């Protein structure tokens, strides 16, 4: 069997035997800087805007609802089942498809939608990233198929960066089959190193940060 053959070759080459104990790996390197919320918001906006993303700040869920309503007016939109979107009332207005739980239906809606609306589990201040764990509330395709993506995120989910993320979620596999970090709009520079956005994923990304402080 190839499996046993390869593992045997590896062990012979390394001078190890099957099941032999392993010394501890080097300690993980996690450094979380102390950055207050205002600084985090500033950094997040700076990083995402540098990538041609948009960042909006609103104080309340109602304000978020009004803002998103104006952004998707006259467009076909699909919203995820994230509880926070329902809390904002974003799932309730005309033109927004939501509550989808079937894969085929979701794929069809997303393939023809102009905008996908989601929340996010976390956001990372020092890179301008969204962190999305796939779940019943948050399907993968809504942030992927439509040409524009709007994410509505409570400001207290804004972490300093990767190190804090991996200290809060040390084992993403226990939570979901898919964790994706989204850092700006989809882009390519494969032809003559000229930057083009929206090659396969959304070319526009807007993050609405909700809450004060």
């Amino acid at each position, binding site marked *: 069997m190839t499996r046993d053959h390869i593992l045997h*070759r590896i062990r012979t080459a390394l001078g190890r035997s099957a099941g032999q104990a392993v010394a501890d790996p080097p300690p993980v390197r996690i450094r979380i800087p102390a950055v207050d919320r205002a600084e985090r918001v500033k950094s997040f906006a700076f990083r995402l805007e540098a990538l041609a993303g948009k960042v909006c700040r609103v104080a309340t869920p109602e304000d978020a609802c009004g803002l998103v309503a104006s952004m998707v007016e006259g467009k076909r939109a699909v919203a995820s089942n994230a509880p926070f979107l329902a809390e904002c009332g974003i799932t309730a207005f005309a033109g927004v498809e939501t509550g989808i739980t079937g894969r085929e239906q979701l794929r069809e809606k997303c393939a023809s939608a102009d905008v996908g609306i989601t929340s996010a589990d976390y956001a990372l201040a020092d890179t301008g990233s969204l962190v999305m764990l796939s779940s019943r509330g948050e399907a993968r395709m809504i942030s992927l198929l439509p040409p524009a993506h709007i994410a509505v995120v409570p400001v207290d989910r804004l972490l300093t960066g990767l190190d804090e993320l991996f200290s809060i979620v040390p084992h993403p596999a226990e939570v979901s089959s898919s964790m994706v970090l989204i850092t700006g709009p989809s882009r390519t520079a494969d032809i003559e190193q000229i930057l083009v956005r929206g090659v396969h994923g959304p070319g526009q990304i807007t993050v609405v940060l909700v809450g004060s402080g």
Partner: protein
Amino acid sequence: MSTEFDQKIHETLADPKLQLAIYTSTARLKQNRVNMVAADVLPDYQELRSQANAVKKHTIENLDHYLEQFESNLAARGGKVVYCKDGTEVADFVLGLAKERGARLIVKSKSMTTEEVDLNERLEHHGLESVETDLGEYILQLAHEKPYHIVAPALHKTRYDVAAIFTHSLHVPNETVIENQTMLARRVLREKFLAADIGISGANFLIADSGAVVLVENEGNARLTTTAPRIHIAVAGIEKVIPRAQDLATFLKLLARSATGQLLSVYTSFLSGPRRAEEIDGPDELYVVLLDNGRTRLLPDKEKRQTLFCIRCGACLNTCPVYRKIGGHSFPWVYSGPIGAILTPQFMGVAHEPALPFASSLCGACGEVCPVKIDIPKILLDLRSEVKKSETREKQNRLEKFAFRAFAWLMTHPRIYEMAGRIAGAMAPSADGKWISSVPPLMNAPPVRAWLRERDLPPPPPRSFREMWRQRQR
């Protein structure tokens, strides 16, 4: 040197358009990296490199343990590991699965590992359609070419080349605006994504404590490849495993910065198993192919096994004075640049292209930029020595041997060395301070001529260092 290697190098050197394309692209990537790892931007850069090196070293030294751990954790999440020793076994596995599931259309995201085993060609030979979806890879697939660069595969193609390729293969009107070309590819490939039965990806990292595949990309095609079809197959070299999800806090900071000068690539996907019961989308089946294809040959040598630390960022290509002249397609296998020069001889055997470890100026730039601190120059020297040792007695160049012995003797006899220097200086033509680019007539012997053909010499100084030193002493 094989004639093919020699010929491709000279073709590349003689093509000014290609020279410009290689030079400008690598210069940009190189500068982007430099900006992102500068001490005021990333103060702990050197610490991160050391940490990445230590983690890779530990993992490779205990590779069997981490592969088994990866395998059992993936199985616990409903995925399956398939070990393959070579490209034939990878193709057999994919073909078998496709037949069982009645699959016909495959979408692929960028993977050097699948390039290594010519997976597309093997699948298409058996009647499957396998479509590359990374824009650069898609262009190259239509042009029937291999990647020119680990990170920027179509670096050598201009917008006019792309227009010609699209017109010819897709039967569309001539289109030379890059944005429109990109949107055309988006439309064509979107249909493929939505119709595909299987998605094949590579893997940037495999996480042992999670049974997870990590994919890093900018376009979103890897996300689509691993989300839209019902089956996801990730093809990865056995060396891709790292112990813990938390190690990503180190590796992700290094990879995108070194590759393209980004803080993070646009999409980083952490995929552990097929979709779960409560999740709405994602694949129903997930397989991870663990490929050997020569990798286990590198493990016995404690020094050279560090070649397997490579995270395929391409930084060594962009900084290499040799790659930047001879380009990607001169190299005899899919891996080019300094990493290709140490990886290919070890995967394929030094006899595959004995001249390869010599295609380096040993300037050390590759080792300096490597985010996982692979000592590439040292390994190049080891491989050179291996090539020389492997040459049969008849093939050994007596003249070369004599020349090096004479050189060693000369270097240990300072008086004679000085005299030789004076004679050589007198033999060189007076070049009025300009570099000597043609062979001086008195040195026009065949081996000297061959050596000088590709090299220019600085003009001999009026006085040697020793003479100046003696004068100072007086």
